[in-house]
């Protein structure tokens, strides 16, 4: 009898945990989907970027680039990055077709040879241009690329914040998890992400600052600050000249357009 009670209690506890666990995961996914939906319909966006790298001695180096993104219905976005500075890499471009499932398609254009090279999109964890951003930090953040677990609701500077853990689906990701801070008061926009390395130790923190709303709908941060807690280095991404719905089409994201 006693044993049965224990058994019932055990199963009860297990089922509660499962239900509770599922709801945690569903809730986390729902928040990510709501954030994604809140930004849908931007069609295309162009912006200029300045990347400011600061090492532990306080030495600063800068890179300039421009970025174009085309929203693709039912699949990941298409994007093109054009490097402008440092001058020795000026004119180098990358073209990426992000996919919700499976590896992204990526091409690299080398202006000196006028050569377009298909490259592996496997290298996700490596540093982008010597910065604290990795390739995966800068690629289009599709909902399907993570599984989710809702943690709690909290507040940051008076705003209601949902804290959600995100687990990368791709085993080649450099992270074991990310902790994302969604602003529930303002269209689920992202306020902060904490990155944990493969060993589970905290690696980096990304802060989204200087938000502005475009076309009464789309929130874009003017400044992203990535701080690496393990090596003490910092990279700032400063955006300018955001332009939405600029008439970009599939034809603007081809190998021919890389060569222009």
């Amino acid at each position, binding site marked *: 009898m006693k044993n049965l009670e224990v058994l019932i209690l055990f199963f009860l506890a297990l089922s509660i945990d499962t239900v509770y666990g599922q709801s945690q995961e569903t809730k986390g996914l729902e928040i990510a989907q709501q954030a994604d939906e809140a930004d849908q319909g931007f069609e295309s966006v162009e912006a200029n970027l300045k990347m400011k790298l600061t090492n532990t001695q306080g030495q600063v180096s800068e890179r300039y680039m421009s970025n174009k993104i085309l929203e693709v219905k039912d699949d990941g976005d298409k994007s093109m990055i054009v490097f402008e500075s440092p001058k020795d890499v000026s004119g180098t471009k990358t073209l990426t077709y992000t996919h919700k499932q499976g590896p992204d398609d990526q091409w690299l254009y080398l202006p000196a040879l006028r050569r*377009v090279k298909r490259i592996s999109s496997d290298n996700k964890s490596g540093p982008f241009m010597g910065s604290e951003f990795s390739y995966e930090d800068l690629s289009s953040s599709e909902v399907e690329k993570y599984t989710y677990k809702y943690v709690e609701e909290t507040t940051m500077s008076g705003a209601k914040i949902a804290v959600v853990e995100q687990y990368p689906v791709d085993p080649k990701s450099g992270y074991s998890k990310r902790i994302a801070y969604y602003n529930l008061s303002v269209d689920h926009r992202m306020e902060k992400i904490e990155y944990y390395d493969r060993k589970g130790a905290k690696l980096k923190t990304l802060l989204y600052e200087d938000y502005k709303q475009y076309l009464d709908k789309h929130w874009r941060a003017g400044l992203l600050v990535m701080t690496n807690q393990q090596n003490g280095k910092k990279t700032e991404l400063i955006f300018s000249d955001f332009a939405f719905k600029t008439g970009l089409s599939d*034809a603007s994201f081809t*190998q021919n357009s890389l060569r222009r």
Partner: protein
Amino acid sequence: MKHLLIIVLVGLTCRSLAQTEAKADSKWEKDFSLEIQLDNRFFLNDGLYERQERNFLSGAITPSFSVESKDGKHLWQGKFFGRLDQYDVNRTHFDIRELYYQHIFGNSEISIGFKKVFWGVTESSHLVDIINQVDQVETFDGESKLGQPMIHFSTYTNWGTFDVFYLAYARRRQFPAARGRLRFPMVIEREDLPVDAELEQWHPSFAVRWSHFFGPFDVGLSHFYGVGREPLFLGFEQNGALQLFYPIIHQSGLDLQATTGPLLWKLEAIYRYADLQEFTALAAGFEYTFSNVWSSGLDIGLVAEYLFDSRDELTLTSLDNDVFVGGRFAFNDVKSTEFLTGGIFDLTRSTYFYSFEGGRRIGKSWKLELEARVFRQVSAEELAFVFRQDDFIETRIIKYF
């Protein structure tokens, strides 16, 4: 008449450029850049032939511009190149690398003027790549090319990209002068090599290409008809001179790459037909990248390629049955340090060939580059035998404006 065509082409380009400048306002995006390099090539051994020097100091300048309309429909690009070499008078040269107008409409574009076009996927040889003549005195690996006057139409469809080229004029390659290195025993001047029979270098060439990608596959099929860019080598004259001329050729090419995770599979194959010679050639291999090794940011790419050419010892590049094995190291650091090193090993003969190419940024706008080429146990059966004393180390410092 034919000279007139080129003059008209250049004239049209310049005139449309001038018009652009005239009404230049916020509708145009303009960009000008300048690259100046100082270069020292040091040969480890004395030359095989009289008068050859050992150390060559040289300088080069590369001004370029681009003007693009904000609506993205009109584009003018220009890139000029000039080098001054201490001893090799043929390496002292000037070239219009690019000078063209491009009109972009919908999914199509048409370009008129001097352009540079690259086709292909492999690293150790570029078989399929045929539109431009190589600038042989500039670099040893064939990656520097002379500007090619052309009319080029390209359209992007759901069935792939289609390119059509009309190449108005065939440019001949330059060879090192008497005091230069990496040359044949007899000094060859550009004009010495004739173009096939009654046809001359004004003989127009045509090329078409279809390229597409399906999931992990990128594929290209091409055909070229006209004056071959590579001289046809028939053997040696009684006096030891090479029998070389530019033939009229048909060349069909295939390039294919499969991108499967960190592993890239690459294939290039050509069939070339001329009245006096027909052959097939192939380059096939893979590249495997270990990315972000030990979370240090370092990417190490291992490249292995097999090179075949049915011309055997008549292969101008001597790459007739060889294997290339190499490593690409990219540190992904603030200074963008990277280098590529490897060796080409002949499978039927004794010849080895090693190379190193590396570079690193200095400050904001300088770059230091190092290049080395070493020949070992060069077989007397191969054309490369004449280069057996020509191991060199080249140091370049480049300033970007």
